[in-house]
């Protein structure tokens, strides 16, 4: 069993090897989680010093979270949840519908549509930020102004190439016999879609759900463009405005940062398996 890893050190025993492992792994955990642990501890302590974290709350207090209410932090949090809730629902619906067409149907122009999907992955928000703000301010054909509305933050995240492609790959795996049997029994298109294909793709729904959640929650430029007034801000873009405060120092900023970090961390821990599957499917792109 010396050959279960490239370095072959996993199976070594003895005090030296074990000490080495403890040091290496301990350092790794500290380096990658240190800043997050520091934030967690500091958010619950009375920090008057705006320069350092306390790695242990010297005096446990909820003061920062109470103060956060006056600074509208919970309003921003609510905005974030509204956007991520509706945005994710829309994104998953759109992905499942599009994937059904790409995976289970053959039609002229299919390759072209696939290419379009890949092309969108090369077009991140950053590149089109300026013209996107103009489109949102005056939607072609509809002539609606989406600046300052939830719709302006929700609709643009509705279609995401990554989700569609992951879903398509998964739907191709559903045996065609099931579909044919249902057709012979006289089931209609929507019924086949809703009662056979989608339920069989439940694992993939978890994958695109957790990725979609972190993607939408992490949106920065889009809300920055769409929400000029602070009452529409989502939590990530509101953080900048909370940096300095006479009463609590950086306490509110720490509390708000923690609230901004927790949802995606919880989502990741709850859906770890799906997350890793999506990560290693090789389809992860911007």
């Amino acid at each position, binding site marked *: 069993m010396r050959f*279960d890893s490239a370095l072959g050190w996993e199976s070594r025993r003895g005090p030296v090897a074990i000490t080495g492992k403890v040091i290496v792994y301990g350092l790794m955990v500290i380096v990658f989680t240190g800043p997050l642990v520091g934030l967690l501890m500091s958010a619950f302590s009375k920090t008057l010093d705006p320069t350092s974290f306390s790695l242990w709350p010297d005096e446990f207090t909820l003061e920062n979270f109470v103060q956060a209410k006056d600074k509208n932090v919970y309003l921003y949090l609510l905005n974030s949840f509204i956007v991520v809730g509706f945005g994710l629902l829309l994104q998953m619906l759109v992905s499942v519908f599009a994937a059904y067409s790409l995976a289970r149907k053959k039609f002229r122009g299919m390759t072209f549509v696939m290419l379009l999907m890949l092309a969108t992955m090369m077009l991140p928000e950053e590149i089109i930020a*300026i013209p996107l703000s103009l489109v949102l301010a005056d939607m072609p054909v509809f002539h609606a102004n989406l600046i300052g509305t939830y719709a302006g933050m929700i609709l643009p995240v509705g279609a995401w190439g990554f989700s569609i492609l992951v879903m398509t790959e998964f739907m191709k795996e559903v045996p065609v016999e099931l579909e044919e049997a249902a057709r012979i029994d006289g089931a209609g298109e929507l019924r086949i879609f809703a009662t056979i294909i989608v339920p069989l793709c439940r694992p993939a729904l978890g994958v695109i759900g957790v990725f979609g959640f972190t993607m939408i929650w992490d949106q920065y430029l889009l809300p920055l463009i769409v929400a000029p007034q602070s009452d529409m801000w989502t939590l990530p873009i509101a953080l900048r405005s909370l940096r300095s405060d006479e009463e609590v120092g950086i306490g509110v900023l720490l509390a708000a940062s923690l609230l901004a970090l927790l949802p995606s961390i919880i989502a990741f821990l709850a859906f770890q398996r799906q997350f890793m599957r999506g990560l290693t499917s090789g389809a992860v792109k911007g």
Partner: protein
Amino acid sequence: MTSTLTRAGARTAPPRHRTKMVRWRGPLIAWLFLAPALLLFLYFKFIPMGLGLWKSFHEVHYITDTWVGWDNYKTILTDDAFGAAIWHSIVLALGTTVGSIVLGLGFALLIEGPARYLWFVRTAAFLPVVTTMAAVAEVWRIMFHPADSGMLNTIIGWVGIDPQPWLASENSSLWSIMLMSIWRGTPYDMMIFLAGLVGVDRTLYEAAAVDGASTWRRLRHITLPALRPVFWILFTLAAIRGLRVFVEVYVLTNGGPNGSSEVLMTLIYKLGFQSNELGVASAGGIVLFLATLTLTVVVQLLRRRQAA
């Protein structure tokens, strides 16, 4: 009851009629299911792209656009601020990519194995990847505090290094941002490498051990060649993501001090939303797109040549 009868009748209709029905209905249903995605892409990706291209050749005023040809592009390519921003973007992208890949590979090798506690270490190490960039950047901004009491300065003080100015100095602002980006990028690369390491043939290791090859040679001749596809995936991702860095810089320094960490995207943002130079900003977006495209194509070409 009658309905089932008629439906049964319809199903035994002449086959010619049926194929005609199916041929007409199939594509229609396919396009209907695709419609929401295509519509959203059209509105929020393709129309903005076209509009950006259009605006990039104009001087944009509140009501009318004046055709100015290549002027905006000339402005970008000759302007010192743009030149510096492009350079900073390249340095940041390259440093983050190389740093994350090297460290990611190192950690992946150290952490490879079936033990239970390794799963815990992996999960903990992966946390930075899923965290919200804006919040993480605020945390690092505090850690980077340049006084002696700043967290990072305290830590390097234990090892005997003098306090650094980090984000506050023109000489170190870009490197500090890079440090945070590597911290966030390494675990991701580590995970991709780990997935690749699983696929390496174990019998090769055994054969190498029988031949008395050292650990280094085993890595050099078995593990690294097997990981080649992983390297290409990571380089491609880096090409797509690298140049368009925005949030990290915007939150940590907003391009300062004195423009020392200004990247392409923060400059475009300032031009577009603060000084209303929409034409030049749009041209900047197009340049960014072309650079990203070129990089991706180059990476893919290199990959083909490697494979051939």
